[in-house]
């Protein structure tokens, strides 16, 4: 108890130092030619995606397998408004609209799903959502340009720096809002819902409202990432936008780092990216095999994630209670 303010201070200064490093790094090197700058940009994106999943799944216990739906919506909203000329290049308004679009879908779909489904059924339901949207975009006629996808000429591209800083900004803002939520009454309610929905409800927590809040917030930041991705790749089609990659990778990173923790997912993102890069470097041809083996080894020796390894306390109960607890308790 007494240590806490001190601890908080060191944590804060570490965080500030890291952010400072990331801010100046592209200014110190030749950003356009630096592979590391691109890698960091990717990492920031995954930090946001991971925390977007973590807030609903890790904190509130609502495991979504439909994050790629929100990512795809973000991509398409940006691409469509951009093509129509209502939004420009790297337009903050279009990015907000993309996030909002994802959030609206999260609310509309989340209301019935979160009210009715729990645990695995909710996870499967969200998986279905992603697939429905993918097929819809594929058959969307001239609105989504179907399988052809929407192409925007890439000659507006100037530098990777704006992407880098926007991704950094989004991830920092996501982290900040997550921190404030986790340390506020909302965070308390989310954890209570994860631990025991019945007890949470009996203690006056409007569980549906908070579940939707967490789910929607996660969808919003995921949509933002989708939007930035659309600006980065200049061509949006169903394979790229609604790729299952956008849901599997963040989940892996969060589990690797530590589900329901604040710093864990960040560690997960950086160590997974670093490990995959290293494996690619050492064995360019066989890297998927080694990447698979790496994941297996990590789970065998670090089953509770990096965070619990570092902090030293393995909270087994937390794991038992996290995402899939519902059926285990109610069969």
């Amino acid at each position, binding site marked *: *108890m007494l240590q806490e303010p001190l601890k908080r201070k060191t944590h804060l200064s570490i965080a500030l130092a890291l952010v400072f490093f990331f801010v100046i790094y592209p200014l110190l090197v030749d950003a356009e030619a630096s592979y590391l700058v691109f890698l960091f940009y990717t990492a920031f994106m995954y930090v946001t995606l991971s925390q977007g999943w973590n807030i609903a799944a890790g904190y509130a216990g609502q495991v979504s397998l439909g994050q790629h739906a929100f990512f795809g919506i973000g991509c398409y909203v940006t691409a469509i408004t951009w093509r129509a000329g209502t939004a420009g290049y790297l337009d903050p308004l279009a990015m907000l609209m993309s996030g909002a679009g994802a959030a609206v879908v999260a609310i509309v779909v989340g209301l019935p799903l979160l009210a009715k489904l729990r645990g695995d059924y909710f996870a499967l339901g969200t998986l279905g959502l992603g697939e429905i949207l993918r097929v819809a975009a594929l058959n969307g006629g001239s609105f989504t340009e179907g399988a052809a996808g929407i192409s925007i000429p890439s000659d507006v591209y100037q530098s990777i720096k704006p992407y880098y800083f926007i991704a950094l900004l989004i991830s920092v803002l996501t982290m900040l809002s997550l921190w404030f939520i986790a340390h506020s*009454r909302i965070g*308390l*309610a989310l*954890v*209570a819902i994860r*631990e*025991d929905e*019945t*007890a*949470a*409800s*009996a*203690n*006056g*927590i*409007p*569980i549906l409202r908070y579940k939707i809040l967490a789910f929607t917030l996660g969808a919003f930041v995921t949509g933002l990432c989708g939007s930035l991705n659309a600006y980065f790749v200049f061509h949006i089609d169903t394979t790229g936008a609604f790729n299952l990659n956008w849901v599997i990778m963040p989940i892996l990173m969060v589990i690797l780092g530590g589900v329901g923790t604040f710093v864990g997912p960040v560690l997960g993102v950086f160590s997974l990216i670093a490990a995959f890069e290293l494996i690619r470097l050492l064995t360019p041809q066989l890297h998927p095999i080694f990447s698979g083996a790496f994941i297996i080894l990590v789970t065998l020796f670090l089953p509770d994630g990096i965070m619990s390894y570092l902090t030293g306390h393995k*909270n087994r*109960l*937390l794991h038992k*209670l996290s995402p899939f607890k519902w059926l285990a308790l109610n069969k």
Partner: protein
Amino acid sequence: MKNNGKDVVLRLEKITKSFGGLMALNGVDLSVEQGQIVGLIGPNGAGKTTLFNVVTSLYKPDKGDVYLAGKKITGKPSHQLCHLGISRTFQLVKTFLSLTAFKNVLIGAIYGHGMRGRQAREEALEALRLVGLADKKEVVTAHMTLSDRRLLEVARALAAKPLITLVDEPMAGLNPSEIINMLKVIKRARNERNVAILWVEHKVDAIFRLCDRVAVLDYGRKIAEGKPEEIAQNKKVIEAYLGKPPP
């Protein structure tokens, strides 16, 4: 609504609830006054917990209504009931395992009653003190004993500043000294807070020692209601518990 000069806090009218073909509750009437401890006893499967779940809207009754302070509240969502003044504990303890004792109770204060900031924290501490857990407030619930968790649930329920608290077998799994402590806590809660308590219990002697009134359920029906000493003499009750005496 007055009853013998005291306010009636909770009133159940002809509550009926069945699962499939099984009649779990059959036209149960019951009322609890302010500051009163009412015991609810009955053999296994008599419908005690079902009655609790109907009151807290986990189940919707087939027939009948629930009134809180004279206002009809049947079927309102659980969390609204908590705001209106009904809090509860659970037979299978439901604390938030990864949170500390203090935060568990804080949830009761914040979400159960709508307090904020310092007020909520003070109320949580006060509730913890009342049940005697003040020195364990920073302990993560997962590491607590069953007895402490049961006390914690009571504290959480009280932190919501309810008109009535429903306690569901708070003594199950406790040893004799822990039971004595729990009895003290319940008594203290009533005395200090003037809160009404509806109490389901298996341990009949505990109920008889503390309750102002006792109601007995058997096969979903209320077979008796009255002062503890009357109930102890009631033939029907003895039959329900011990079976019919041989003729």
